[in-house]
């Protein structure tokens, strides 16, 4: 059964890839079916994961210490359920979304391959296998970000995502070296049996593992690839860059709970990075206009929450937020995909507005998801976010608790800003871009992108010549995800919730002193923060007067946004100056000057001062090339023949 879960998506990928030209749109059905089979198999093997600490399956060994196998336990089960369950809904939606794309078979091959890779990551029973999955999801992400490979921006984004993720990969590699050389094995069972056997490197192992987690999960300062990754088709953003792959870092820390519980310094470090990322991402979300980029920064911020949760050893809370986030963020992305689709690839919310009447399914589903992400009870996000924030306090990190609450308010504000500007008021798409404050350069860039699309008609993303897919195929997954945005949190309510019981034996437990503020008070403050955010957003965008003057107000806001936010805290520039430019300069220096003039120069100098070789080189320069070729070969032949004869004569 485990092999069905794991390998059927791979089979789907291979079939879609091999028979793409024959399958055409049927590839979507095949790809979705493969994920459906995997999901059903997962549900059917529920018991195998939850009883007796899960199922273990040995596969093979590279050499001693590098043993590969599969481990299916409650933590893996939750991830597999989301990967295959939400994954299936997104596959279904993609059938509609990619209806008119000529490369639809390639798309589903990549998407199925991603699911396989992600399953490898979460089902592996050792760090080397995890790293294999880790690299393969990075590859799938690379393929899908660069899916429209004729767009230079997509190509650059794909490369950036891959390279930053390799930084994470080598972090995990180095952690593996340390574990392997300390205890001679890299299996979870071997490493977690006694974390203190890793001393004095335990903290550093956590640090290097977290470099991997931070790169994959877009934590500061390795987050810059995620907003760029929105170049990929929207279902990809929903599946890979919101619901599953980017949460791999959360999985890694939760999986390594025995290590984190044994190292208090590692908890502080990871919790701090998570809290700062949550805040920084939310603040950037305020200043964005591209609907997918707003959602990307919100993903970064929400994963910050999860990382903060698992980092401070509130593992069930962190995983809970992963679980609910998968539904509401996938819902938000797919809903925005419906809007983008309906508006012929327009992504700027200043050119939207009034979508409530036109796209009711998107309105209602995204509405549920917006309430969920903002932390409004009884929507899903309220329960899980509350647990994370309270978990930080419970484990003694008061400042993280405060940051978590502030971030909750900001989240509420920027999500309702998105919601109101997009869905209420009147449609602004017919206005000139300048009327709503879109700068000249960005609109001309959009035109350039458009012309490059036209230049490649054979692979144009959304032609309309083939008509549209049936409407339900995109609406149903969004509606289901919207529903789960409401109900998914209900299993987490209360002290002895089903969620807590499910993970009862999965994570190490610590005896904690009672927190200074009760959970009830925390919830109260969180609800207050939600209301404040909602209120501010309403005052700025939602009042009747604001809606009536929307273009002018949006224009004014565009012009007055702080430069530091518009430029994303200058992270791209800083990383560019710190790493990219020095590497290129070094390459130029080595390649243009040092190699030809110094290293080779010395060799030439030695050769030229030697009289014999010097003569040889001079004669060569006079053009006696062929003569010398003959001499060399004859010399070699004579040498060979002489020795062969001498051997034969004896």
């Amino acid at each position, binding site marked *: 059964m485990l092999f069905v879960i794991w390998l059927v998506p791979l089979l789907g990928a291979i079939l879609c890839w091999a028979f793409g030209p024959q399958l055409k749109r049927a590839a979507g059905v095949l790809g979705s079916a493969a994920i459906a089979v995997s999901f059903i198999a997962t549900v059917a093997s529920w018991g195998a994961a939850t009883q007796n600490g899960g199922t273990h399956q040995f596969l*093979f060994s*590279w*050499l*001693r*210490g590098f043993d590969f196998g599969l481990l299916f336990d409650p933590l893996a089960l939750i991830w597999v359920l989301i990967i295959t369950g939400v994954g299936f809904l997104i596959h279904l939606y993609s059938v509609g979304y990619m209806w008119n794309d000529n490369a639809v078979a390639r798309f589903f091959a990549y998407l199925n391959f991603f699911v396989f890779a992600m399953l490898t990551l979460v089902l592996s029973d050792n760090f*080397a296998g995890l*790293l294999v*999955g880790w*690299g*393969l999801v990075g590859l799938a992400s*690379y393929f899908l970000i660069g899916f429209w*490979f*004729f767009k*230079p921006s997509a*190509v650059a984004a*794909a*490369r950036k995502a*891959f*390279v930053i993720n*390799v*930084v994470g*990969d*080598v972090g995990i*590699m*180095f952690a*593996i*070296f*340390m574990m*392997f*050389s300390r205890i001679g094995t890299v299996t979870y069972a071997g490493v977690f049996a006694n974390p203190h056997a890793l001393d004095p490197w335990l903290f550093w192992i956590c640090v290097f593992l977290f470099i991997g987690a931070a790169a994959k999960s877009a934590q500061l300062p390795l987050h810059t690839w995620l907003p760029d990754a929105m170049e990929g088709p929207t279902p990809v953003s929903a599946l890979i860059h919101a619901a599953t792959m980017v949460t791999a870092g959360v999985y890694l820390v939760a999986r390594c709970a025995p290590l984190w519980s044994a190292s208090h310094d590692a908890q502080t470090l990871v919790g701090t990075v998570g809290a700062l990322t949550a805040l920084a991402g939310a603040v950037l979300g305020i200043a964005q206009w591209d609907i997918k980029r707003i959602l990307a920064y919100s993903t970064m911020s929400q994963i910050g929450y999860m990382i903060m949760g698992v980092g401070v050893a509130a593992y069930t809370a962190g995983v809970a937020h992963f679980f609910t986030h998968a539904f509401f963020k996938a819902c938000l992305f797919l809903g925005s995909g419906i809007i983008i689709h309906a508006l012929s690839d327009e992504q700027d919310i200043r050119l939207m507005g009034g979508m409530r009447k036109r796209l009711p399914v998107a309105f209602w589903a995204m509405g549920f998801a917006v309430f969920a992400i903002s932390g409004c009870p009884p929507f899903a996000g309220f329960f899980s976010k509350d647990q994370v924030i309270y978990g930080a306090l419970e484990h003694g990190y008061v400042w993280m608790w405060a940051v978590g609450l502030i971030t909750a308010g900001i989240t509420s504000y920027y999500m309702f800003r998105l919601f109101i500007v997009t869905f209420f008021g009147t449609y602004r798409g017919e206005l000139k871009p300048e009327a709503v404050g879109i700068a000249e350069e960005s609109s001309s860039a959009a035109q350039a992108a458009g012309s*490059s699309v036209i230049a*490649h008609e054979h*692979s144009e993303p959304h032609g309309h010549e083939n008509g549209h897919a049936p409407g339900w195929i995109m609406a149903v997954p969004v509606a289901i995800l919207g529903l789960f945005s409401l109900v998914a949190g209900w299993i987490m309510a209360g002290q002895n919730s089903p969620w807590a019981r499910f993970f009862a034996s999965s994570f190490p437990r610590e005896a904690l002193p009672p927190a200074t503020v009760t959970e009830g008070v925390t919830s109260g403050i969180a609800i207050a923060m939600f209301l404040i955010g909602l209120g501010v957003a309403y005052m700025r965008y939602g009042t009747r007067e604001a809606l009536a003057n929307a273009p002018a107000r949006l224009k004014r806001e565009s012009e007055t946004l702080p430069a530091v936010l518009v430029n994303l805290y200058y992270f791209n520039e800083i990383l560019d100056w710190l790493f990219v430019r020095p*590497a*290129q300069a*070094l*390459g*130029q220096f*080595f*390649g243009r000057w040092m*190699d*030809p003039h110094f*290293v080779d120069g*010395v*060799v030439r100098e030695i*050769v030229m001062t030697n009289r014999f*070789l010097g003569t040889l*080189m001079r004669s060569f320069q006079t053009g006696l*090339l*062929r003569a*010398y*070729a003959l001499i*060399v070969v004859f010399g*070699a032949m004579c*040498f*060979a023949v002489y*020795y*062969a004869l001498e*051997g034969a004569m*004896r």
Partner: protein
Amino acid sequence: MSLVLIVLPILAGCALFFVPRSDRTVSRITGCVVAAITFFLPLVTGNDGAISAHWLSRPFTASLHFAWGGLSFWIVLLLALCTFCAILATNMPQTRTMIALLLMLEGTMMGLFTARDILAFALFWDLMLIPPFFALVGWGEHRDTAWRYLIYNFAGGLLLLLATAAFGVIYGSTDVIGTGHSIAGAWAPWIFAGFAIAFAVKTPLFPFHTWMPATYSDTPPPMVAVVSALQSKGGLYGFLVIGLPFLGSAMAQWKWIFIIASLVSLLYGAYIALVQTDAKRVVAYSSLSHLGLIVLGIFSFSGVAVQGVLVYIIAHGLFSAALFLILGYFEEREGTRSLARLGGLGALNPKLAGAFTIAALAALGLPGLAGFAGELVILSGVFQSGYFWPALIALIPIVLASAYMLRLLQDIINGPQVKDIPERTDLSWVEGLAVAPLLAALVVLGCYPHAVTATAAAFTAPLAAVQPQAAGTLALTKEQHDR
């Protein structure tokens, strides 16, 4: 039987000179059949094909002794496979001559990798320079390159010969590969120095690499595929079968020179590859970087690292051959290999682009492909032997590799088309068949490198004498071997 591996390709190569100059079919079929025979012969015979004839008795004993046991087995298979693929991919003016040269190259390198006598090893070391030299003379873009290749490598070969003679005089025999014991004494470090410089030139290792980029970019694709995949392994093979067993203490004495040189190669090659504008030169400098990793693994004297070294030797052979063949296909179609003038070729050549992608990913160390297995195991062993900083520094080129390999890949297959070419043909089935076995082997070896690592026991045995830590890993390797 191993004589067949040497003589058959050389004779077949000579015989091809008697078919008409313009011939393609006969040469290709002959070449493929010969390469296939040399591939399957070691597989089906089930022994090590040893053959031995007395050669010299003064001043030391030497024999014409050849066998394909141990590490040779895998390299012989790799050589036969790469030759097969290169012959299939040969499509140029004078196909016949190129195939003849490829066969001769295969024969001479078979001699190198199956030699059980160091003198015979040294003999083939020089003989194998001849076919690439003529390929460079015949097809190269700069005459200078051919000479530089020959002189540089002959100089190395001369040192090798001197070292071999000294070794023979001291040890009494050169018919020793695969047997014997470590030699000590005042001369050992100098003998090792002779061997080591020859090996370093061939590998190549910084600062002896400057013949390599020009050679790789000037040599026609089928020839450079085999040269980069196999000739460079001559030096590494020498370190493993001559250095470790006989000159281990001298190697240990000078190890820091080699560790530093290998780290410099790793970084230097990677940084230069980052900014090259000629597609073949990107791969050439990446080779410098990758082979530095292997040297680092060897000089960590770790039983674990040596297992990784074997995997990576095979992996590098596979992906560099595949990359050069594929770049050759692009060059043939576009008439250029300047990255600035290529671009957008993926849309019209999807199969070619797919093959290129797999090869490039293997080269950048994607988990699941063979390069990664080698890297992970080598560096685990290096770290385990206590080389903390070298292992950490060696991670930087892995990140750089992803940057330069993706740059190469994307600049060629992605992006808008640089120019309009109405008729373009995707991979033909012959061209596809020429790279498919290499790519398939990369996947298989990447998932299951145990087949190769299991043969490492023979090379890890001498490590115990060199480095105390290796004793533990030695026991480990043997147990692994028995399993």
